[in-house]
């Protein structure tokens, strides 16, 4: 009985996957024929099924860019980048789209080791890190086996040190995977969707106006209170804004 249920579920899943592939192809054809508005509709239709892929977000971002909706295109490029951080095309188009953003934020320099660390963590997806962690763990176990049953001291020495290294790789890629996963799940970053947003000093309309940001800017969400979110800009400035003025990536 259970087996039958599983089979049906598997068939259904593959069927929907086929449907999405067909829709994607249709949307791509529309895009190629310069019918950007129609292609946007079809891309969104794919995403409505709660299935995603970096290609869909990237192509949707392109379609938005072509219809001059730069903010939406930035949002979708960011989403694509989240799923596929090392894709060069996505980074390039995001950079082009970001030129339409009014605000120029000077990023805080930060310590170079931290920057390297972050760029290392962000260079791969959570799945890649997870597979990396598993792979290195298995190799570690093999090394451990060699260490235990080796007869000569040379083999023992080599396997000991490589085993140490591998267990470190395992642990760090595990933690990277966890970090990437939390980015995917928590949606800490967001794009400003309203043309201009005034940032308040406190989560209420009466708060002092601190500064004004414009649409398309990427901000980091640091806190939440009712309908207000505390955000932090790349230059370190912080303030509160209404929830509906930004869209989580």
């Amino acid at each position, binding site marked *: 009985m259970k087996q039958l249920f599983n089979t049906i579920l598997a068939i259904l899943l593959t069927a929907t996957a086929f449907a999405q592939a067909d829709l994607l192809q249709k949307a791509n054809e529309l895009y190629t024929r310069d019918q950007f508005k129609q292609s946007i509709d079809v891309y969104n239709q794919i995403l409505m099924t709660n*299935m995603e892929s*970096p290609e869909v977000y990237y192509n949707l971002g*392109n379609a938005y860019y072509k219809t001059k909706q730069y903010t939406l295109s930035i949002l979708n490029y960011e989403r694509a980048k989240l799923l596929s951080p090392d894709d060069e*095309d996505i980074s390039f188009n995001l950079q*082009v789209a970001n030129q339409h953003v009014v605000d120029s934020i000077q990023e805080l320099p930060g310590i170079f080791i931290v920057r390297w660390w972050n760029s290392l963590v962000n260079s791969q997806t959570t799945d890649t890190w997870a597979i990396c962690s598993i792979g290195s763990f298995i190799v570690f176990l093999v090394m451990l*086996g060699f260490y*235990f049953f080796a007869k000569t001291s040379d083999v023992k020495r080599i396997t000991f040190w490589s085993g140490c290294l591998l267990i470190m790789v395992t642990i760090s890629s595990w933690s990277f*995977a966890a970090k990437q*996963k939390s980015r995917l799940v928590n949606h800490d970053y967001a794009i400003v969707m309203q043309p201009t947003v005034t940032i308040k000093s406190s989560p209420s309309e009466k708060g002092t106006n601190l500064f004004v940001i414009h649409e398309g800017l990427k901000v980091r969400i640091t806190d939440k209170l009712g309908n207000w979110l505390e955000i932090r800009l790349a230059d370190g400035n912080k303030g509160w804004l209404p929830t509906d003025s930004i869209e989580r990536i």
Partner: protein
Amino acid sequence: MIIKLKALIVLMFVGFLAMADNVQFTMEGPDVIAAGEQFRLSFTLTENGSDLQLPDLSNFDVLMGPSTSQSSSIQIINGKTTQTSSFSYIFILRAKKEGKFTIRPASIKINGKTYESNSLNIQVVKGQPQMAAGQSAQPGNQQQQDETPTGIISKDNLFVHIAVDKTNVFKGEQILATVKLYISQNVPLNGFDEVKLPSYEGFWTKEINIPTQVSFTREVYNGKIYQVGTLKKTILFPQQIGAIRIDPFEITCLVRQRVRKQQGFFDDFFDNYRVVKAKVVSDPVIINVKNLPNQPANYSGAVGNFSLLGTIDKSNVKSNEAVTLKLNISGSGNLTLINPPKIELPTDFESYEPKTTDKTIASNNGLSGSVAFEYLFIPRFAGNFTIPAVQFVFFNPSSHQFETRSTEPFNIRVEKGKDDGGSAVVNSYSKEDVRMIGKDIRFIKQNKAKFKPSGSSFYGTFEFYMIYILSLIGFAVFYILNRKKIKESANIALIRNKRANKVALKRLKEASVFLKSNQAEKFYEAVIKALWGYLSDKLSIPVADLSRQKTSSSLLEKEIEPEVVTELMKIIDDCEFARYAPAAFSGTMKEVYDGAARVMGIFEKQIK
């Protein structure tokens, strides 16, 4: 002689023809007159003619005429003598009734040939009372003026009017504005003083040249005859949308007035005149300017009707040679306001700002003529290039729509220019960076996408942890199994050792009994027996066939060390010595026993 005469006749004939062709016969008269008014009708002729046939003048009274006059002039310019003469016939006529009349052409004979004049249209309007009375009506008018001693002349008699040919226009459409001065016939005008021109704010203006000397023509306005002088003619191009007001035109006229003083004796005979300043102001004019309908993207502000001609001075050039593309826009409209049309040059071409040549004439028909744009560019590299057709979009106010004129595409073949070999400068090949012409996003990804539920990832799933756990379990199982095997293999050696000792001890059991009871002879016999029995079992050789040689050789074959074999032989010797010649034997029973047990143990371990 005859030939000469013939030539002369031919020449004379030609000259005669030429003269005959130059005959001009014109009729002149006023356009507008009042009924009962006298006027001149004159016929002018450049040759002496005869038999003037007058047209039908039944609508007019011929008061006098014809009176003839003749004038001639001789001009000598750079030795060229030209003689012009004119003969005129003048009639004085008077209109009988109101209406529009056409005077048919008159005809005249010159040297037997008949020439016809032009025809004339004359409008006769209702005569004003003072008009009808002619000069004698002046005093009546004078009294009117005396009633206004400040010298202000009634608006009916003197006014300025700005006439525009249209008041509802599109933005950029040209309007002809004429400033006219209307003077009633009985107002003697002496001259003008301060003239304040309207500023024409909101318009781009172009003045039409008219003679500085104002010439007056007769015109009917509101059923009254006026002397009308054109003061200014301007072409206006509205630059704003909405109702634009043209400011009034102000002019101060100097009018001569007769002052009559009743009390003086001479005053009845001599009139006193004074010059009065009369300031006249025109009514403001409102022009409604409509915006152009949906403008095409490449529209640059031209309004009118134009034609476009594009020429290129050469289509085969060498690189680094200049090429000129000339666009000539001709027609009528706001020509001087036209921006140079954009031409799309290949990006490798070096181009310069276009040169604009304005050949426009402002006339009563508006601004017309042509504007030429010269684009100079230099192809820097060889190849075949095409400059796409130049499009020029303008708004045609008469058809109310945008029209496009375009040229043919221009093909340019650029050949490699000669390098200046003679120059002392060392040629350095300059490398060029790839120029980025445009910036755009990269194209969409066409490859097959791998879909997965949003927010899902391999990390953190059951499978992820299971792989860890399973691999750990796998390792543990491997470890345990391996350990056990090692242990087992170590045990086998131990057991063998144990078993070997056990066999040896079992064989020597009998001997050990005799050892304890200290029965020497029986002990050695038992040891010998045990050894031979063991060797027979181990080497699978019957006891009867066993000899010392055979035993040692087969033991050596089984890779037993020679020392052990020697030791075995020594033990056997010792036992035999002890049995048969106890005196010669120096060892003890214990030594023999241990030696035999040890040797057998070694064999048990090494012989499989």
